[in-house]
């Protein structure tokens, strides 16, 4: 067993780090949505600048 720990301890540890992983994925979703909004704004500004 890893580091002398029993199977139950390692299972709890895996669940805990999995929760961190899920939180990271949720954070990535938020970052993507913000970047997509900023990208749309930049595209709109670019099109307006081209029209001018």
């Amino acid at each position: 067993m890893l580091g002398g720990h029993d199977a139950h301890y390692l299972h709890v540890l895996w669940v805990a780090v999995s929760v961190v992983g899920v939180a990271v994925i949720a954070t990535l979703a938020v970052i993507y949505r913000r970047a997509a909004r900023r990208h749309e704004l930049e595209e709109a500004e670019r099109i307006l600048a081209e029209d001018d």
Partner: protein
Amino acid sequence: MESTVRLSQLMSMTVGERPATRAQETMLTVLAIVSALVLSAVWGLAAGSSSPELALADAYKVPMVILLSAVTALPAGLVALRLTSAKLGGAELASAFASSIFGGTLVLATLAPLVAIYYHTSAKAGVPLAMGSVFVALATASMLFARAVARRMDGLQGRGGSRLAVFVLVVIFLAALLQFVALASPIIGVHGTALENGIDGAFWR
């Protein structure tokens, strides 16, 4: 249509092209990570195909192991970048890292059918082939990462600092990967492999 364009842009970023804007780079970085998770899940299905339960578990475990290793390594790379006063930005390092992980998992997913067929048709070559596909993917990702950072440093000073950051990131990613694989074991085969005992199994058997 838009997803096809995004994937095309992601492939371009993986081979070293820079996105036009910072917002686009951020979007492609996140897309690279999400795509890498999906591609590694495909390999997980193949590596765990000795039983349906293991295949389903691996489709979750392999992407999680890669994501957690990347999250563990990234802060160290950013600190190395700052301490060496490298001209490369933290977001650029993260972007290059994400695209190289995407490249590595693309190799894993490409080799997944081969891994699966050997698993079911060879008593001796299945596990070594699965392990080999991991090492090929790791080597590919490391090379892509070094190349992406080198292209971003074109014309800039302080290349030594960014090289050191790449080295630190890769070493810490591998060290974290080894232990997360051990924590999530078994991944390859029902009984696992030597690497699935972590650093103790790899060096002090």
